[in-house]
């Protein structure tokens, strides 16, 4: 034959070089470069701080914003990570569960806040006519209507869970045994359908839901250690609720069989069935927790930002995915760590780059870390 051999030497050479590059040492090289880069940035940070190029207050503010962003990303990411590992697919409709939580929760909060003063339709649809109320008129802040806001929070969780379970019934349940990719594609379909069904009712325009956030500027003496001069109560509510839920979830998974059952299912679904794990019930629990957290995340983001549209979850989705993958799928601590990395990256990176490039930094970091650790930061490390 002989025809096939021309140029084989050359391609062998190329092959070899590439093999060497893509081998472990290549990964180590990347890791080294990344660490080096981070080290340089840290040194530069210290330099900027000491030289006065960067005010400490601003760095603190970036960090705080990063923490706040991390928390709502984490709420969504934990749920995504759980459904990812147990149902074995990347759920692209998770972002729209966040949206669902925002819309359903605030609709309920408005109905309660404006009960008797305005028509139900006006409240549920967030003032579709100019005559309707605004969030400010309804007094939608945590001090003025704590009950409405709390009920809205619970409703956001419950209604999102309901929607997620209904979708599972209608779509995913019929596809339990298909591979991850068909499910992923179906979830893109779910994402579009869900988002624009919401759009048909609430339009694609944005709505403003809350009154402006109450601010505390005078602290009692014993709170001398607080490094802020002002606290936004809505932001604080977000932080407290998110941290509380994460701790609660940790305890739930640590001290009940549910956590083990979920891991077992993530590992080997057929065998889980055989050992008597009620898999459908575990799936139910997974959706309940995952969608509940997503719904709460959506609701809290709106509480913090005041304003939202049907794209709120979709725009977050890629960040959520980045967090989940960075952390390594299947571990809630991984999702937490990933969220922190992403949240801090998009904020603290502003020290060096303009604001329109911060997401680029986050996604680039995600890709780099995946190259170095293909299973994610905590991939393979088993946690609750």
């Amino acid at each position, binding site marked *: 034959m002989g025809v096939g051999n021309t140029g084989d030497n050359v391609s062998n050479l190329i092959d070899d070089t590439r*093999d060497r590059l893509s081998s472990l040492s290549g990964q180590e090289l990347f890791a080294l470069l990344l660490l080096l880069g981070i080290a340089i940035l840290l040194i530069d940070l210290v330099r900027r701080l000491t030289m006065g190029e960067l005010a400490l207050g601003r760095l603190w503010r970036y960090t705080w914003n990063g923490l706040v962003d991390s928390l709502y990303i984490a709420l969504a990411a934990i749920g995504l990570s759980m459904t990812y590992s147990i149902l074995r697919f990347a759920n692209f409709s998770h972002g729209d569960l966040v949206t669902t939580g925002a819309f359903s929760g605030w609709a309920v909060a408005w109905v309660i806040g404006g009960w008797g003063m305005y028509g139900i339709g006006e409240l549920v649809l967030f003032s579709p006519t100019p005559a309707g109320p605004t969030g400010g008129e309804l007094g939608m802040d945590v001090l003025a209507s704590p009950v409405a806001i709390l009920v809205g929070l619970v409703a956001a969780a419950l209604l999102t869970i309901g929607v997620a379970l209904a979708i599972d019934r209608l779509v995913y349940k019929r596809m339990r045994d298909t591979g991850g990719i068909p499910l992923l*594609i179906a979830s893109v*379909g779910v994402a579009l359908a869900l988002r624009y069904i919401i759009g048909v009712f609430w339009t694609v325009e944005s709505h403003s839901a809350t009154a402006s956030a109450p601010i505390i500027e005078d602290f009692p003496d014993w709170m001398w250690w607080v490094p802020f001069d002002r606290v936004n109560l809505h932001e604080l509510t977000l932080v407290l609720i998110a941290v509380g839920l994460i701790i609660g979830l940790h305890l739930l998974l640590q001290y009940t069989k549910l956590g083990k059952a979920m891991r077992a299912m993530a590992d080997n679904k057929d065998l889980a069935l055989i050992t008597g794990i009620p898999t459908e019930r575990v799936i139910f629990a997974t959706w309940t927790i995952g969608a509940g957290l997503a719904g709460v995340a959506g609701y809290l983001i709106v509480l913090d930002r005041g304003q939202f549209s049907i794209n709120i979850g979709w725009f977050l989705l890629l960040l959520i995915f980045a967090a989940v993958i960075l952390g390594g799928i299947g571990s809630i601590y991984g999702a937490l760590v990933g969220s922190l990395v992403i949240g801090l990256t998009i904020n603290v990176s502003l020290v060096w780059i303009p604001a329109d490039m911060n997401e680029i930094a986050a996604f680039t970091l995600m890709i780099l870390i*995946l190259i170095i650790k293909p299973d994610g930061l905590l991939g393979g490390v088993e946690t609750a």
Partner: protein
Amino acid sequence: MSETDPDGDPETETTDGPDSADDSSAMIRPKWREDLLLIAKIVLATYVGFFVVGILSGAGINSTVGTLQSITFWAALFALGALALNLHWGYTGMFNIGVAGFMAIGAYTMSIAIASPDGSPAGFGLPIPVGIILGMIAAGIAGLVLVIPTLRVRADYFAIVTLGFSEIVRLSVQSRSLRRIGDTEYGTGGGQGIRATPVDSVIPWLFDQPVIGDVGNVFLEIGAAIGIASSVLMRGMYTGVLILFVIAFYILLTRIAYSPFGRVLKAIRDDELAAKSLGKRTDRAKIVAFAVGCALMGLVGTLWMGSRTHISPDSFMPLITFYVFVALIVGGSGSNTGSVIGGFAFAAFIFEGPRFVRTIVRENLGTDFPRTAYGAFAELGGGDPTAMIGYVLYQQADEVRYILLGVVLIVIMIKRPDGLLGHRKEISAGVDLTRRGAVADGGRPAVGGDTDAAAADDRQSNTGDDNDSQMETNDPDTTTAENGGKDHE
């Protein structure tokens, strides 16, 4: 031209085998004719459908033909995208959801290359074909840069990596920092995008070309005679160019599919380690396939933006990627014919369909519909269903399109995960594998025991020149005897 071109090609190239010449054209592409027929049927049926509905609803001939041309334009574009994606996903199993990013790279590179040097941002004023080629190369290189370090990343992680990459591309071209790079006049224009000057736009350029221009002018005259405006036909010209590209892509990808290279790609999709252990350079094949696919996506980007004089980052939202995916899935991934049909079906029914319905609603029910669900429900409660219909189909046509898109995806995944055409046996080989070489009879020989006699003869005639085969020492009689034994069981 769409019919003679691809058909003629395979025949010319296989005439070298003395006795196989007759068969092999049919063998190489077992379903060539049926596939073309299928595409033609679907396209024709859709055209007739849209035309009749359009005319009946009073949209006018020019307007209806305009819709058809618009459908064809998008169909060609999505078919191109789906074909390129098919190389990644359908064949190699690389789940690339960053299509929009590679299209953006192609389109931006072309725009920077061809935009006028005194524009803002400035371009290099190169000829259009050069721009197209540069766009392809840039997208291909971007693919290389992305795929080499991420070869080891799991399939679903890889998907997110590509999606992240496409967002990086979009956000970068949008970023202020690249608006004008450094102190140069050149750059991406940021959110403003790049304007290639009208003089450079592709359609007039096409009309300046020798043959194409003449053909175009003839079409213009015919169009004028039957009441179709030149604007529609000019755009039709461009769509014609796209169709030529579809044909070229189709031939290229079909060739890849029916070849040992395609076989390696398929093996990678099925089980990469197994392929590797058989001595296949899977990494190289993946890199090549990915880069080529990305280059093709870049080409699609240039062709898409080539019909525009202005390019901006908004055109490359991830949604475009999902459009391409839906097109591929509708047709059935893994099948090139399916990709073309999927592109067409997507463009006609999901992309343009709701707009068309909207036009019809407007023509028949007017435009005076409530603007909010609130109003629609109020009027529905007041006993006026047209308000609701108008609200959903006219005011919310866009939302309805997305819902339709979503539902179609879900239903296909549940009911027909293999696409409209179903699971298609596209056997990846340069020849028809189902029969032995020199079997002379025209019919399809049954496989298994019945062919043994022919097979045995065949082997005897073959072993003489088959000196590479280790198997030649194999005594034909033994094999036949064994087969006989098996039959007894």
